[in-house]
C-alpha cells in the first residue's frame, strides 16, 4: 500500500495523463464513425495476424511429431535391408537352409552439439544408455557414416566424429572390393584419406567408397564418399586416395546409432582368442 502511494506520488501525473488519453481514445473510437471503422479494421487485422502465428506454432509441433514418426519408419526400412540382417544360408547337400536374423538395428538420435574445426572433433547426441546406446556403436546419417560412440550417460552420448585424427575405419571401393583404412589429416572437413589400397587395384576418379562390413560397427555398403584424386606420392606399394565425403558433417542434424545385435558373440570370440 505504501509502495503504491509512493508510486502515485512519483508518477501520479504521468498515470493521470495516460488515463485521460486512454479515456479520450476510447471516446474517439466509440463515438466517431470514421475512427471507429479504422479501429475495427486494424483490430481485425491484428487478431488475424495473431491467429496466424498461433497456427504456425501448432504446425511446428505437428511437424516434430511427423519427424519422429518418419525416423521410426526409416529405421523399419533400414532394418529390412540385406546388410542389416544375418544370413543363415548354408548349403548342405541339396538342402538349402535359408533364414535370416536381425544383425543390425538402429536408434534415432538428434545432434545437439558438433564441431568440425580442430583435429579432434566430437559430437553429442540426445540419446544415451536409457535408449540402448553403448560405447563402440557406429553412427550414420541418411547421407553416410558419421562416427563412433565413445562414451554414454543415461541421456546423452559422446561420438567421435569421422573428423578425428585417430579415426581408423575400414572402407572399400565398391567397384573392385579392395579395402583400406579411412583416416583424416585434419585439413579439410569434406576430404578424408583412404590408405592401404594395394598398387595393383584399379582406381578411377569418381569411384564410390563404401563401408567394408569388416567390423562390428557398420553394415556393409553404407555410403562414405567418392574418390576425388589419387597418387603414389609416398613411393610405396599403396595408393594415397583423397575421398570426397558424401556426408557434410558441418550441417548434421538427425542421425542413427547402429546397434550390432550379436556384439556379445564377437566379444566372446575376442576373449577366447586373447586367452
Amino acid at each position, binding site marked *: 500500500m505504501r509502495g503504491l502511494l509512493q508510486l502515485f506520488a512519483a508518477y*501520479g*501525473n*504521468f498515470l*493521470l*495523463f495516460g488515463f*485521460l*488519453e486512454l*479515456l*479520450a*481514445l*476510447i*471516446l*474517439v473510437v*466509440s*463515438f*466517431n464513425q*470514421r*475512427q471507429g471503422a*479504422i*479501429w475495427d479494421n*486494424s483490430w481485425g487485422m491484428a487478431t488475424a495476424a495473431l491467429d496466424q502465428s498461433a497456427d504456425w506454432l501448432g504446425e511446428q509441433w505437428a511437424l516434430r511429431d511427423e519427424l519422429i514418426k518418419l525416423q521410426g519408419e526409416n529405421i523399419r526400412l533400414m532394418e529390412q535391408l540385406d546388410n542389416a540382417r544375418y544370413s543363415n544360408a548354408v548349403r548342405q547337400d541339396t538342402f538349402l537352409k535359408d533364414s535370416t536374423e536381425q544383425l543390425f538395428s538402429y536408434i534415432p538420435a538428434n545432434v545437439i552439439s558438433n564441431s568440425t574445426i580442430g583435429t579432434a572433433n566430437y559430437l553429442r547426441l540426445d540419446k544415451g544408455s536409457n535408449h540402448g546406446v553403448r560405447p563402440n556403436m557406429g553412427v550414420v546419417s541418411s547421407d553416410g557414416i558419421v562416427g563412433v560412440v565413445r562414451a554414454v550417460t543415461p541421456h546423452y552420448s559422446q561420438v567421435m566424429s569421422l573428423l578425428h585424427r585417430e579415426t581408423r575405419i575400414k572402407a572399400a571401393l565398391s567397384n573392385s572390393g579392395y579395402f583400406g583404412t579411412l583416416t583424416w589429416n585434419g585439413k579439410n572437413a569434406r576430404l578424408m584419406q583412404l590408405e592401404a589400397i594395394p598398387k595393383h587395384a584399379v582406381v578411377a576418379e569418381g569411384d564410390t567408397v563404401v563401408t567394408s562390413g569388416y567390423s562390428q560397427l557398420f553394415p556393409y555398403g553404407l555410403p562414405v564418399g567418392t574418390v576425388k584424386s589419387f597418387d603414389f606420392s609416398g613411393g610405396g606399394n599403396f595408393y594415397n586416395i583423397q575421398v570426397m565425403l558424401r556426408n557434410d558433417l558441418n550441417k548434421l542434424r538427425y542421425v542413427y546409432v547402429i546397434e550390432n545385435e550379436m556384439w556379445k558373440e564377437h566379444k566372446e570370440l575376442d576373449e577366447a582368442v586373447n586367452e
Partner: protein
Amino acid sequence: MNNTVIWNIIRFFVLLALQGLFLKRISDGWVTGSLYINVFLYPLFILLLPLQTPRTGVLLLSFLMGIGVDLFYDSPGVHAAALTAMGYARALFLSLYEPREGYKLNDKPTPAGLGMNWFMKYSASLMVLHLLVYFSVDAFSPIYILGILLRTFFTFVSSMAAVLIFVFIFMPKR
C-alpha cells in the same frame, strides 16, 4: 490570487464559446461559403494558466476543455486527446525555456510577462504539438501522414495569428 482564479474561469468559458460558436463556423465555411480555415484558439486557455498551477490541475483542465470543444465539434475525444497531450507537455516546455534566473513569483506566461521572444517559442512549440496530435487522432491512420503535416502547417499559421491577436487585444503591455 482569487482574482486570477476568477479571470481563468471567465477565460475558460469565453474561449470555449468563441471556439464552439464562432471559430467552428469559420472552419465550416461560414464566412464566405467557400473559405475553410481551421482556427484553434482554445489551447490559449492552457497556455495562459498561471505558472504555479499544479500539473494535475493542468491535466484535468485540459481534458475538460477538450471535451467541451468536442461537444461543439461533435467529435467526442479527439480534441480532448490532443489538448491533454499538450497539457502534459506544458511543464516540459516550461522547464525547457526557463530563463537563466528562473521564473519569478509574479511572472505570467504572456508577452507582457516574460517577453515576446519567450512567448513565441513557448506557444509555437505547444501549438505544433497540439495540432500534430489533433490531426493524427482525427485521421487515425499513419497512411494520411502527408495530409496530417499539411493541415498542421496551415492550421498552425492561422491559429498562431488568432492567439497573438487575442493576447494583444486583451493583455496589452502595461
